[in-house]
């Protein structure tokens, strides 16, 4: 698997009141994720489906020997899956949940770049006008006149929610 960009620490820790964000495209929108949570980015592929799980859980991948769940972000946000292209990537994130560090992968259409965003460029998330659940958004950033949706990764990847919907589907007899 080819790694496009890796290692959050290697990029240096944010200074002052600015933070670094990885931007990526999903559907027609640009999103940003704080890079401190990001472990690596890999090419999309070899996802093994896990039966009886909600649609937005694509399945699991073998990441150098450990089995990591992959979430289809587009499905999670809009209920629609975007077609996979050559640029479709999986961002491997490390999130802490109940003192337990877990790795989760999310699929995105394309990874853009890492941006320094000043704290005063970030506005609170709007109440309306967004296609996706507001709790997933931790703010909107204006970068070079364009709007960037900054994701609250804790809520997007809340284990409680992910696993709850993953309950048993009624059995076909």
């Amino acid at each position, binding site marked *: 698997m080819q790694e496009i960009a890796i290692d959050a620490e290697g990029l240096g820790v944010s200074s002052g009141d600015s933070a670094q964000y990885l931007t990526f495209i999903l559907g027609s929108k640009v999103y940003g994720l704080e890079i401190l949570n990001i472990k690596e980015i890999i090419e999309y592929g*070899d996802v*093994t*489906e*896990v*039966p*009886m*799980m909600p649609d937005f*859980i694509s*399945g*699991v*991948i*073998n990441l150098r*020997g*450990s*089995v*990591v*769940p992959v979430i289809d972000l587009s499905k999670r946000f809009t209920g629609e899956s975007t077609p996979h292209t050559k640029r479709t990537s999986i961002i491997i994130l490390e999130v802490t*949940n109940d003192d*337990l560090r*877990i*790795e*989760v992968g999310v699929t995105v259409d394309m990874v853009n770049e890492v941006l320094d965003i000043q704290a005063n460029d970030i506005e609170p998330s709007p109440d309306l006008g967004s296609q996706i659940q507001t709790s997933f958004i931790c703010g909107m950033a204006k970068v070079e006149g364009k709007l960037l949706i900054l994701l609250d990764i804790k809520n997007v990847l809340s*284990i409680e929610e*992910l*696993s*709850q919907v*993953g*309950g*048993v589907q009624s*059995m*076909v*007899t």
Partner: protein
Amino acid sequence: MSDDHLQVFSEEAEDLLGLAEQALLSLDDLENEADTLDCVNDLFRTFHTIKGAAGLFGLDPIVDFTHIVESVLVKIREGEFGVDEDMVSLFLLSRDHLEQLVEHALNGEESLTTELATNNQDLVTKLSIYLGESAEDVALKRADIVTGELQLTEDDDTLGVINENWHISLRFGPSVLKNGMDPVSFISYLLRIGELESVVLIDDALPSWDELDPEVCYLGFEIKFIATDADTNKETIEDVFEFVQDDCIINILPPHSHISDYISMIDSLPEEDMRIGDILVACGALTEHEKENALNTQDKFTDAVIAAGEEQRAPPLGKIAVEQQTVQQEVVDAALKKQSKLKQQRANSQQSIRVNALKLESLVNLVGELVIGSANSELNARRLDDANLNEAMENLLRLVEEVRDTALGLRMVQIGETFNRFKRVVREVSLDTGKDIDLLISGAETELDKTLIEKIGDPLMHLVRNAIDHGIEAPSDREAAGKPLKGTVKLDAFHDSGSIVIQITDDGGGLSKEKILNKALEKGLIQENQTLSDQEIYRLIFQAGFSTADAVSNISGRGVGMDVVRKNIEALRGHVELESEVGVGSTISIRLPLTLAIIDGFQVRVGGAHYIIPLEMVDECIELNEALRGEDEQANYVNLRGEILPFMHLKDMFGDKPLSENTELSDAADKHRDNIIVVRFAGKKAGFVVDELLGEHQTVIKPLGKVFQNLRGISGTTILGSGEVAMIIDIPEMVNRVVNSDKQNFVSSQSIH
């Protein structure tokens, strides 16, 4: 002392306390006096070893406490009183207390917490009752025993001396220096437990220069010692000199000792009596008057034993040693036994080594990677189709398999130790409830994974308590039912088709289905008109908040137990089941997987995905053809050699994912035929229809993360040789589904999972 050493001490103490518990519990059953004595001796040894070790670390609370326990044991050994149940209970409590003390010491805290201190005081008071004296007297009494033989009766009127401090008289043996001991270090060590009021050097034994051997120690000391801690006893001080006590003359006299003690001490010393007397006065042990008194009394005494007079002036060292040994015979015995036991332990330790659990875990993880790696190599080797390479690969795989089994075997531990812990529980609970109960243990040598053993302890504990509290009836009820008065709880462990089964059986009243059903209705767990099988009814008691006990006792019955037990066991990929017959008893069976790390799996293909079925549970594979299925295409059971075998298409459950490009199809897949894999779990059989059988696969279990915690039917994942991830099918869950769904076709009832 460094933490490392303390850690070793705590591990040793833990082992010893375990031994003590076993000895105590067996003490309970023994009727034979000789055996009892053996047990008491065992106990004494273990406590004594703990005391000795604790002394090395200066853990005074432990030393003091064990000393009192020991004293009581000595009394038992001397036959002053027999062992009864209360005493065993008291000793068990003492053992527990000691465990807490050790733990406390390990945390590096100096002073006891209030709780521990109260507990300590409480136990000391109780133990002292057996000693027939108050705790402070114990130390004095011991001193009396040591010097007791020369006790004089005529000076009853002269009570203790005025000296309020300890008096320590030391004559270092000639070989002390050669043995690498420095006399001064012992004296400076005393500073740790108190202050030296005065030290007088006795150099009378020093020869002239010509005769002086620089390697021989000629020195002696008379020390007036103020203990910092009022609780300091003779033992504590004796322990300071533990390393030299064999070749030195050590006399330790507690404050206000009887004058006769001083006399006997003076007698035992090689120097002139008068001179010693003066020295004692000089270092403040005795007043001038007391010295006169002592020496006069001694004169009278000496007259009576005039024959020994000459020897007493300069008694040979050996004689004194012997004399003291005869007095302290039990101490010598204990020391000898301790030595022989140490030898035995050393022999044992050569057969086993303590390994850090983390190291073992990383070894097992590595072996897991090795297995995956070799599967990958095998796949590629087969593709190359080179005979030599394939042969080498075969050999390698065989070795990997052996390495795997050995590595997993390292973690296997016999369950016996865990079972033995329950003797104590049964004893206590049966005392609490007033029921007479026997615990039968079988299958103690059954091995299972250490992690499992650790985690199964609590659920087991709960089940055993339940069996006693709810299961076994009160003696009066038992008598009325014509059963033996003594109830029986049985713990059993054995292997059964790739699982470990642990059974808890009681011969109590059994579970009343009526009662369970009523309770379940009351709690709204089931509906009025629901029809349930026996198994389903029994399974209700594993629901949250369910208890059939009419009264809540302090042992169980709060209804928080069984569902937690079930959850804990399921977290270990295990299952729990209950069988019961009213009036006869109940059996709870816990089924656990043999290991949590690597299993032999059977690989199958369903649609485009690969699945693993634990091989031990696979009974057979048969082709699903018309003859087997019969007329009915829709039927979900087949006639397997006269037996009804319910089955399901895994496709229905897991979905029919199309074949992906990189899934390789073998020839067999082209001539498509449906296969049924017949699996067996807990006596139930079920079939699963799959698209292709791919054969055995060494399966390294990779747990599914928290995201999938509510997923049923899949117990984990593994990585195939191709690097692909495959799901491991949770057979127990699936068998239950198949069997239940079969029933649901006839009775439309709500599943009670």
